[in-house]
């Protein structure tokens, strides 16, 4: 590729597709790009008035020396893992699910409906809430899925528009008939004790971590060992070939989106019944974007998703204390996530292409 545009120049940059790099070289490029992104982020934080030594304290010392904070990281990682899985399943089917937040909202609405209307016996309540949340999430992705498969309507835009519709519907409920009758605040009434995910005996860690690990295992099995996962891999690498091989592409995409929607709905339940103990008007904020970025960074690999979610969670918990002590807006966390993903996405260029200087 001739950037100078001038044939008479002595030297020019040449760009060619490389032979696939080894794992070691790939890892080094990945690490360098993450470090590069982190240093940009640290630079921005210092510009915003944070001491460099405090950063080390907030993000490393503060988190790894106290059991309380370590458990807070694990609790925060749960919804991130689930949205990461949700995004990954959809991406495997080449369906860009940007509507995770809307599906979380409807998952939480369905779960809260079960909780506030006391549907079913108390011992079954959490199970019912879990199933309702999955159904709510599915309900909110089904339209974008159908119009994508049938009419080829761009799912990025349709799922995103559904977010805004879901958000306004949530506000309609919370400022209307679902407002907390005790406090008058615009959130749902508090769940009963048996409607919250139980603690599992270490600090604030609750049962949702078990759900998240279980779901990761299921998705891992689905991707690696099942027929479904195999067909998804074929579809992912070449849609035309999948069609010619007799794979029913439409149904495959539909199933993947349904699973993705169900996971997002379950995440809404996990946040409401695992962290907030009620449905608030902002419980979902940022999870959709984080999910997409996590799935992208982890290359849709469930084990990678666990690792990246933990790292993002450290970022979130550290960011919360920066918010308290430095009034750094929480958007900073989102910004750091975006910067790191941008650097990693950019680094793929160096994995795929070789740049050389040609002399004429």
């Amino acid at each position, binding site marked *: 590729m001739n950037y100078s545009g001038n044939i008479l120049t002595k030297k020019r940059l040449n760009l060619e597709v490389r032979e696939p790099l080894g794992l070691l070289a790939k890892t080094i490029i990945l690490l360098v790009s993450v470090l590069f992104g982190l240093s940009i982020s640290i630079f921005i934080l210092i510009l915003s008035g944070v001491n460099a030594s405090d950063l080390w304290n907030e993000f490393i010392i503060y988190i790894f020396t106290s059991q309380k904070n370590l458990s807070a990281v694990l609790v925060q990682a749960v919804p991130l893992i689930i949205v990461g899985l949700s995004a990954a399943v959809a991406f495997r089917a080449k369906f860009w699910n940007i509507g995770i937040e809307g599906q979380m909202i409807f998952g939480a609405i369905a779960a809260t409906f079960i909780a506030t209307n006391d549907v079913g016996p108390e011992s079954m309540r959490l199970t019912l809430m879990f199933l309702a949340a999955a159904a709510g999430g599915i309900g909110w992705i089904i339209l974008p899925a159908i119009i994508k498969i049938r009419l080829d309507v761009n799912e990025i*835009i349709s799922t995103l528009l559904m977010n805004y*519709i879901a958000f306004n519907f949530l506000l*309609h409920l919370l400022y209307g008939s679902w407002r907390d009758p005790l406090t008058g605040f615009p959130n749902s009434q508090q769940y009963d004790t048996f409607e919250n995910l139980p603690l599992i005996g270490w600090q604030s860690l609750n049962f949702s971590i078990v759900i998240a690990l279980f779901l990761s295992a299921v998705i891992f099995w689905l991707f690696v060992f099942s027929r479904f996962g195999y067909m998804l891999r074929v579809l992912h690498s070449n849609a035309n070939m999948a069609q010619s091989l007799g794979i029913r592409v439409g149904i495959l995409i539909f199933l993947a989106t349904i699973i993705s929607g169900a996971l997002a709905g379950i995440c809404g339940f996990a946040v409401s019944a695992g962290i907030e103990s009620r449905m608030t008007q902002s419980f979902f904020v940022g999870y959709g*974007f984080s999910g997409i970025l996590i799935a*992208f960074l982890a290359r849709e690999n469930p084990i990678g998703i666990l690792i990246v979610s933990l790292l993002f969670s450290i970022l979130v918990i550290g960011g919360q204390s920066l918010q308290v002590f430095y009034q750094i807006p929480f958007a900073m966390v989102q910004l750091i996530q975006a910067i790191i*993903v*941008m650097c990693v*996405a950019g680094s793929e260029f160096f994995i795929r292409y070789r740049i050389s200087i040609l002399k004429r």
Partner: protein
Amino acid sequence: MDFLVFWLSNVPSFAAPFALGVLGMIICERSGVLNLGAEGFVLVGAMSGAGVLISLGDYPLSAIIIAGASASVLGLLFGFLVVLLRVNQVIAGLIMVFLAQGLTSLISRNMGWVNKPFSGLGRLDFGFLTDIPFLGPVIFGQDIIVYITILLYIFSFYFIYRTNIGLQLRAVGENPDAVDAAGGNVILLRFMAILIGAFFLGVAGGYLTVVVAKIWVDGISGGRGWIIIALVIFARWQLWRSIVGAVLFGCIEALIPRLAAVGVQLPQYFILMLPYLVTLFVMIWSNLKGNNKQDTPLALGRPYLREERH
């Protein structure tokens, strides 16, 4: 009758940001670069416009130009990612949105621009022309950007369909190999298209704060960037159809405050859903009607590299 006059006279100022944004998107996507970062560029423009008015003083027109310019700065980054580094254009576009959301929130908080009302840009008054019943306020009672937008459309129509560089722009979105072989500079063309497109998206954002809201809060664009992307698909990347779409959405958005004013009893949040529902409906409807594929720029979303030529 009063209802109609109020409504119609408000349509242009609601339609203008859509028209400007779609214009930018069409220029960008005609060059074959899929731009899903529209919401991000709109946000950056909106914040910069408000920031200029709050921190530098009451210069509404400069504020709108700076809004466009600062969106172009983000466009530089986008161009670097998708044109030079050949990053997946979907991911790069989404990153632009996340980045802009974080960045605008951080900068506006640090600079103290949040929730500070300013006087912004008012409407023009052509004296007796504006006083003509019915037509006066609708045609002669708009702000200057509305008229500039119309001129921009006429100019862009000429530029895209009647000039050599416009032809190259369209060609590079259909068949970059051919442009390259004919001696055109694919990289440069795409980069320029991204910068110009980002500029107009930024102007659209600046219009939202400087003319419409006259205040900045986080996420003020409220998904208009995404509606703009949907409108581009509705318009099938053609300028004249995009005017129809922009005016349609201007009508709907202008109707929302009017409905409340005349006392129509509808739950508030259902009215606020309306633009998104209509967008969804329009997307379904335009895909039901016919095959969009033939109007989509052929190379849309595909990075170009000489070495990868077949």
